[in-house]
């Protein structure tokens, strides 16, 4: 029905559903046939490769499925709307890819243009249920956006708390001009930047730590500053 297709959430579930069949189909393949000495994932002939399939929601979020006679590579490009999401996604994926050995089906490096890649070989399908593998990949795609949003929220929340604590302990000397947010944001930010710069070489360790932290999160500078405290 049209209502289902237009809803953005359902577009994603549609793509998840669409993703399931191709992934299932691609997971259907046999042992490697080109054996020199050991069975490898390297394929020497073009006819042993299947047509790659891309399922995309838009050009930033997509899934690439490349199949061959003995393996399937599923690469995911995750939605990254802003800087924080980019950093979070990058770190999250890196965390998992460094432990790819324990993951079995994860690839150490993502395919060019994507954020994470799975490599599922015939060995994996011999040891594990195929329908479970498919369910896992789909579940992964569902959860990844949720996790990154959650992480972003918690980062912002933590940074807000840190900024508040930091600014509670700080007293401005007279040589810095500070205006409230309502008047001139630009000047405030500029002066705040100088202020932080000096705080980074403060003798107080707490001040130093918090200053460094605040420097790396420019988006926090819109924290409400109470005039009398400063």
């Amino acid at each position, binding site marked *: 029905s049209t209502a*289902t*297709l237009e*809803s953005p*959430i*359902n577009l994603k*579930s*549609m793509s*998840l*559903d669409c993703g399931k069949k191709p992934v*299932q*189909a691609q*997971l*259907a*393949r*046999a*042992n490697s*046939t*080109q*054996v*020199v000495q050991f*069975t490898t994932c390297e394929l020497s*002939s*073009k*006819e*042993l490769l*299947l*047509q790659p399939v891309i399922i995309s929601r838009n050009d930033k979020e997509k899934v690439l499925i490349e199949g061959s*006679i003995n393996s399937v590579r599923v690469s995911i490009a995750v939605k990254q709307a802003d800087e924080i999401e980019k950093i979070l996604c990058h770190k999250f994926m890196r965390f998992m890819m460094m432990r790819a050995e324990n993951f079995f089906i994860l690839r150490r490096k993502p395919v060019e243009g994507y954020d994470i890649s799975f490599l599922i070989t015939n060995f994996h*399908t*011999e040891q594990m*249920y*195929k*329908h479970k593998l498919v*369910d896992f990949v789909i579940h992964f795609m569902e959860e990844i956006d949720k996790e990154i949003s959650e992480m972003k929220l918690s980062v912002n929340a933590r940074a807000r708390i840190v900024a508040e604590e930091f600014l509670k302990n700080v007293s401005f000397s007279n040589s810095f001009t500070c205006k409230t947010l309502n008047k001139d944001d630009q000047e405030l930010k500029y002066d705040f930047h100088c202020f932080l710069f000096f705080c980074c070489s403060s003798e107080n360790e707490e001040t130093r730590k918090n200053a460094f932290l605040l420097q790396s999160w420019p988006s926090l500078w819109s924290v409400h500053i109470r005039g009398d405290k400063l």
Partner: protein
Amino acid sequence: MAYHSFLLEPISCHAWNKDRSQIALCPNNHEVHIYKKDGTKWTKIHELKEHNGQVTGIDWAPESNRIVTCGADRNAYVWTLKEGTWKPTLVILRINRAARCVKWSPKENKFAVGSGSRLISVCYFEQENDWWVCKHIKKPIRSTILSLDWHPNNALLAAGSCDFKCRVFSAYIKEVEEKPGPTPWGSKMPFGELLFESGGSPAAAQTSGGSGGWVHSVCFSHSGNRLAWTSHDSTLCVSEGGKNGTLTSLSSETLPLLCVTFITENSLVAAGHDCFPVLFVYDGAKGSLTFGGKLDVPKQAAQKGISARERFQNLDRRASETQNTDKDLNTLHKNSISQISVLEGGRNQCTKFCTTGMDGGMGIWDVKSLESAMKDLKIV
């Protein structure tokens, strides 16, 4: 239906002896194990250890009681039973890639091996030198041979390959047999002659988006006039030889089928990645191939009704009304079925067939009880 779980590992390949009391199978490693039927149980009686690579094909010659095995180590062995143990004889196949499938010819004086070297080795025994000699069929094979089947006349050989084609070759070896008579597939049959080639090519598949696929399995009918093959694009094709040779194909909605066999001259059973066997019916007069039905009897799962609220929720979340979580496969086999073999009745009046798969299990299917269990199922 009987199901026996042999192993946790996939069964790579299997073969039955003549009276179906013993089965030889490869438990996804370098060995071949022979099990003997003991009432309802199966006991392992032999372990054949000679290969250095995974055993990819086994065939048991019913009359001469010899087993031929081929493996990823590029070798084939012919095993003969001497004083209660199986003794291997190495066969030099002269291939530089893994062997993929092996089949005894109907008269058991030859066998053919398909390999990743893009050729078929047809081997016969040379009495003077007391060893197995092989001849190669190379042209025009462009990729790995995945499956082989002999025509009942002992001379023609069908081969399914990764270059998307199914072909019929002549494997007539003048040293061991008389010249065969003409068949609907052709009359001139020097060794290596190509008598039939199906359509489909990798290039066409790339451009037209998937017409054709790796040919996983080929099978001649009992008379030898019909040839069926399954392909990775989920199709089943049947071809009838002859001047008015026809080619019919059916795209099934299932995942690709890995194995197929005729159970009568008009009915075929195939199975593959969907984990259950399916029936197909071929009508020679009309030249049509139809889907006959799914042959698994699922366990009657407790069907709880879905409330309207759940329907809406599922629609919202998954764009489908039901929760197809498929926590458990409700089929006999829990993983892909890779091989199917006829147990009783031959290919024209099959009454029992056997399936083995990647779940390490073996299913024995009784055709009569299947017919009665599923209404609308007709095996013609």
